[in-house]
């Protein structure tokens, strides 16, 4: 999942860096102020998830939780996962600093795609179905990530098809576990705070009301 330093060609690293910066810019532009706490929490979730090892058969896999980030955050998943990856590289040595851009794109872009594909379905369903769609989003984002990793390796000189097969099959258990955990998380969110998954509707309402809210906030600030 995390490509390490020295595995990729310089062109791929630069390309990944440019794409990551573009994604970060887009994510930060689309970041409404009331989404910042959720972004921070999901970033922390992603940061810690890689340390949670789930035993599967003789081996174990670790969680990634990018699908949930994409579902809740949309494009804002880019800054959230970037911060998570940066700190994972510094604290745990997962991946590395030169491959940070590529890793960000490989993990965050699939999260964004999965988020956009399933967010509508999740927000319109009852909790049970929302959980199923959430699980699909979690599994899909991992599957797409394996594809992106294979593309990165393919562009760096390894054969694309063998690399893709290897990475995809290696991540089948992660997809299953990730799907289950994402489903559980979405179920919980739908029960406790469904507004988190209805992001679009909420933003437009916020925008419509914003002059009134802002005026109120300014008054509060002056009073305080």
């Amino acid at each position: 999942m995390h490509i390490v330093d020295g595995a990729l060609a310089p062109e791929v690293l630069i390309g990944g860096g440019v794409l990551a910066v573009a994604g970060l810019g887009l994510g930060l532009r689309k970041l409404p102020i009331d989404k910042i706490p959720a972004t921070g929490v999901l970033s922390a979730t992603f940061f810690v998830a890689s340390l949670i090892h789930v035993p599967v058969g003789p081996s174990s896999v670790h969680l990634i939780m990018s699908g949930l980030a994409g579902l809740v955050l949309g494009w804002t998943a880019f800054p959230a996962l970037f911060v998570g990856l940066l700190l994972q590289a510094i604290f745990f040595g997962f991946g590395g600093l030169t491959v940070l851009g590529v890793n960000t794109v490989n993990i965050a872009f699939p999260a964004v795609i999965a988020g956009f594909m399933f967010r509508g379905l999740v927000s319109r369903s009852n909790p049970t179905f929302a959980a199923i769609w959430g699980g699909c989003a979690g599994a899909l984002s991992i599957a797409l990530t394996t594809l992106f990793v294979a593309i990165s390796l393919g562009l760096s000189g390894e054969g694309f098809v063998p690399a893709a097969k290897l990475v995809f099959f290696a991540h089948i258990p992660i997809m299953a576990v990730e799907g289950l955990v994402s489903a559980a998380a979405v179920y919980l969110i739908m029960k406790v705070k469904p507004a988190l998954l209805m992001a679009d509707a909420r933003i437009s309402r916020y925008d419509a009301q914003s002059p009134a809210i802002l005026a109120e906030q300014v008054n509060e600030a002056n009073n305080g």
Partner: protein
Amino acid sequence: MAKLATGVFLAGLLFGMQAAQAHKVIASVFPSGTAVEGEIGFSNGDMAADTLVEVFDRQGNKIDEIRTDADGFFVYTPSRKVDLVFRADLGAGHVAEASFDIADLTGISGPGSIAAVSSDDSANITVDGAVVGDNATKTAITREQEEVIAAIVRDELRPLRREITAYKEKNDLQSILGGIGYIFGFFGIAYYLAARRLRAKATKS
């Protein structure tokens, strides 16, 4: 049907073999007499069995290549006196790299080190008051015995070295909590900046 069964079998095989790939790669090399011992594996304890390890010098010129055994273990005897870089590609973007400083490789056959050791020994023994002369100590340890002792010490130290490598890879609660703290702090600053901008915009309009 047979095709499906083969497909499932192959998938199972690949998944069994490669399930460890989601973990961090660890490579360590250490001196062992005149040779260099090394170990390559994943942070969850799966070792890289039968993997090609390429040996480079510091300038990146390929010198040699070796294969690991079933436990991800390899022994390489350097033919030239240059610093070495060991590199193994474990597939799927996992590259293990470990460098080795040739100066660490003393080798037990160095006459200087033996002389130093035996003279130290004799000094200690004289202080203790035992009736052992210098000559007796020197003849007591022959080259064969020296090699046997070196081998024993290496075997005794090997688990310790593994433990140290494992310990270095351990993520303690401190760094996890520290990381979460950094994330919350970072987004707190972002929140502050966003709030300031919002307020500035509101005052203007």
